């Protein structure tokens, strides 16, 4: 048996070296990477907003950004868009959550699948679907109305503010649904029984007892959807630009048209960043507020409310919402993707696989973009998870002081409150000039994706590590293994499954990310989402739909893998933020 030889002198270098935990450099690396990915882009964003192209200090960017009525109007448009879309989301999401969580409505499985489907469709693909449905002249719904009523022109125009609000609401209401449903799932029937026994009917109970109990969750979801709506780029770009109006994100994009005015864009992005940070803070305060003790405890006994004859109207409403968000758009997208020309309608001789074949195999551009999408999303996921795992481990095992640990997790979670488009401008500002010239390479996309989804990776890694008893690692160390031995032989084998799950949760949004990519791609680094957006002004909807279907297909495959790894709930589970 070896025996430790240590001199008694407290200041000997040899002793210090032997006693030193050699893993310290890993923590330093993690901190360095966080500075590179999160701090520097944000700092550069702030700096360039006060800089002239030659680097001198100026306030002129702000004067330009807010000096024109058009620009200010875009800000207001975003506000209107956010509030309206979020309100419409409540109308869609809350009744569905209540019906699925608390009532005996039939066909719940179907509704559940349709909502999951809505979640899977990238918002901009939904917008494409609705262009096909409600485009001013050729849209299917307009044609239908013309056919039925003999009117000269259909009534629907998706290229309008109401159209944009509607489309965004269609693809954001799943957030409201998930938040509300998980809150409702925790309300015990006893609370409702208590009201019933005092003479309140089912409806009255639901409105005066159940609803107020889940109100904080609904409010939190409202804020989340508001922020999602104002930060989206794809749908506004597809719908607002042809409709000749601007929102913040499309305006930002225009500042980037050649020659890019980065300073102005940075200045213009500040309110978006500010309001996001502020509202996320507010949302956390609301959803974490104490006093609604019922929501933090165990559910207690739960029984479903019998709807009686209201069963069918309720199902009708749910199906209606899902038809608008999922069934109708998916049908027309599939039709377009499989059609020789989408306008020729739903006939067999219009069917072809050429669009899909051409997109995947023949067209260099789309084939490369597909490949890039996979590679970039994969690389970004690996980077995000490796970094998040490192930070989560450091923080949870308290390897650094409380303050450093707090700072680390703050920085890792920070991208959560940075709209993708703002992050992209920060990356552009930080890494377009030497010595750190990443613009034009794949790395800027990969790193931006990794940063954007770092919080998702962190939340998952953190909860995975928390589930491992630290004594398992202590046992390795006391038997003579180093911390790295412990991580290699115990932690990693135990984390395999949850890390695969985390990978999927990062990979899926990374394959469809548009708002970050649109500012950072170059000719050789196109991804599918960018391509889809690029092709939209050519009017080749067959190809758009084909690209969209490929994206959906990728997503579905990975979600199925996720189901196998982590159970059916993993996508729609409310993230513990």
């Amino acid at each position: 048996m070896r025996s430790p030889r240590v001199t008694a002198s407290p200041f000997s270098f040899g002793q210090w070296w032997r006693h030193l935990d050699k893993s310290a450099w890993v923590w330093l690396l993690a901190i360095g990477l966080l500075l590179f990915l999160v701090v520097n882009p944000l700092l550069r964003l702030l700096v360039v907003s006060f800089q002239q192209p030659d680097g001198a200090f100026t306030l002129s960017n702000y004067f330009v950004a807010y000096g024109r009525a058009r620009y200010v109007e875009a800000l207001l448009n975003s506000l209107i868009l956010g509030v309206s879309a979020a309100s419409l989301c409540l109308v869609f999401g809350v009744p569905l959550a209540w019906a699925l969580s608390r009532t005996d409505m039939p066909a719940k499985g179907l509704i559940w699948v349709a909502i999951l489907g809505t979640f899977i469709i990238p918002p901009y693909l939904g917008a494409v679907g609705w262009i096909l449905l409600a485009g001013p002249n050729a849209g299917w719904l307009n044609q239908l109305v013309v056919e039925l009523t003999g009117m000269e022109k259909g009534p629907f125009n998706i290229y309008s503010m109401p159209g944009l609000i509607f489309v965004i609401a269609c693809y954001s209401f799943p957030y409201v649904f998930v938040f509300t449903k998980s809150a409702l799932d925790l309300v015990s029937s006893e609370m409702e029984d208590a009201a019933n026994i005092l003479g309140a009917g089912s409806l009255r109970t639901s409105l005066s007892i159940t609803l107020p109990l889940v109100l904080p969750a609904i409010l939190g979801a409202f804020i989340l959807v508001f922020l999602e709506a104002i930060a989206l780029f794809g749908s506004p770009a597809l719908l607002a630009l042809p409709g000749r109006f601007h929102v913040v994100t499309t305006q930002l994009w225009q500042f980037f048209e050649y020659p890019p005015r980065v300073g102005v864009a940075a200045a213009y992005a500040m309110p978006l960043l500010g309001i996001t940070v502020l509202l996320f803070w507010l949302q956390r305060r609301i959803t974490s507020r104490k006093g609604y003790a019922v929501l933090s405890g165990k559910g207690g006994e739960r029984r479903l409310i019998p709807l009686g004859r209201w069963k069918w109207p309720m199902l009708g409403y749910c199906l209606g919402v899902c038809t608008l968000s999922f069934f109708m758009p998916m049908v027309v997208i599939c039709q377009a993707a499989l059609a020789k020309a989408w306008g020729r309608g739903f006939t067999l001789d219009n069917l072809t696989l050429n669009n899909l074949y051409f997109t995947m195999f023949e067209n260099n551009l789309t084939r490369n973009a597909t490949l890039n999408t996979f590679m970039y999303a994969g690389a970004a996921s690996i980077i995000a998870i490796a970094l998040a795992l490192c930070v989560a481990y450091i923080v949870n095992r308290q390897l650094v002081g409380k303050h450093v640990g707090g700072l680390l997790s703050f920085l890792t979670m920070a991208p959560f409150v940075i709209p993708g488009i703002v992050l992209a401008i920060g990356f552009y500002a930080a890494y377009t000039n030497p010595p750190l010239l990443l613009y034009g390479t794949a790395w800027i996309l990969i790193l931006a994706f990794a940063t954007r989804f770092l919080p998702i990776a962190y939340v998952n890694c953190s909860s995975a590590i928390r589930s491992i008893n630290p004594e398992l690692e202590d046992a390795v160390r006391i038997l003579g293994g180093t911390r790295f031995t412990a991580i290699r032989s115990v932690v990693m084998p135990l984390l395999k499954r949850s890390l695969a799950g985390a990978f999927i949760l990062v990979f899926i949004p990374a394959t469809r990310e548009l708002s970050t990519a649109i500012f950072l791609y170059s000719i050789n680094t196109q991804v599918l989402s960018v391509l889809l957006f690029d092709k939209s002004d050519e009017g080749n909807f067959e190809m758009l739909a084909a690209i969209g279907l490929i994206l959906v297909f990728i997503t579905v495959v990975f979600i199925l893998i996720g189901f196998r790894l982590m159970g059916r709930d993993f996508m729609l589970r409310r993230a513990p933020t």
Partner: protein
Amino acid sequence: MSKLVLRNVSRTFGDFTAVDNFNLELVAGELVSLLGPSGCGKTTTLRMIAGFMTPTAGTIELDGQVISSPASSLPPEKRQMSMIFQSYAIWPNMTVAENVGFGLKIRNIKADEIRRRVGEILEVVQMGNLRDRYPAELSGGQQQRVALARSIVVKPSVLLLDEPLSNLDANLREEMRFEIRRLHDEFKITMVYVTHDQAEAMVTSDRIAVMNKGRLEQIDAPYALYGRPKTRFVAGFIGRTNFIEGKSSGDEVHFGGFSVSKQSLQTEAPLPQDVLVSIRPQSIHLLKQNPGVNSAACCVQGSVQRRAYLGEYWDYHVTVPGIEQALRVTARPQDVFEVNEPVWIEIDTTQLTVIE
């Protein structure tokens, strides 16, 4: 020479002092337990010995070498110790044999030697037939045995045990106490055993160190600790007891209804004016009649205030004029007294212990 020495060891967390100027010396092959209520600092002390935590003052020495001091601390993996954790910490991704052989693998021992030693130790803990099982397929007691085997097979310089039995059910716990003692006697390992269960400490330990609020209250062999507790905390924590206040005057100490000579209290230091003594419930006897003069005992009259029958014994609370608190007395099942019945109380004065 002492195997393990803790010299004036303290550990603070912010304003909170978890361990306060703690001193302990273990000779090789000794089993000392750290006993105290939760939050008394015993686990903190153990984790400092293991090297998971650095003391904020004082030093820890192993075989005469400083391994922990506020300036630096030898990492746990270099201390040649092993430890048994409250959760057992059996690695769920490895079989029983892989778990037990892990420490040997780290020590670069050849595969066939590992197999032989793992097989031997698994026989010792009666787990030989389960070597290829995964931990999820084992009961709590079996996991405990794997943990024991895993920590003994590496022949540690010191074996640390952190409440190893607290997750087992009562019967198994009793069995494992003896098992741990048996393994200690068989392998002569120096052990530090942390527990809050006094019975566990008494069955397993050579000496027990009672801790309270980060301080060492008393360290003694189990018999001495129970029979001669030095502090009020120790007397109250180890078993049940009665405290009686008295006043010394001249050669005697007067308690409510009786007096004893100072000599019979067997204290080294001179007695102060106010004296506090402890007497165990089984050192007091209840009688129907006055037994007359007895040299070793004092007799006073009292009455039964309340009683409880616990099968193995009676638990009486008896009030005595002049003594503030009712005395607790344990009596054999056949010694039946009614509530409010006047009784004679015989106190075995040789069992009176003065509390500092």
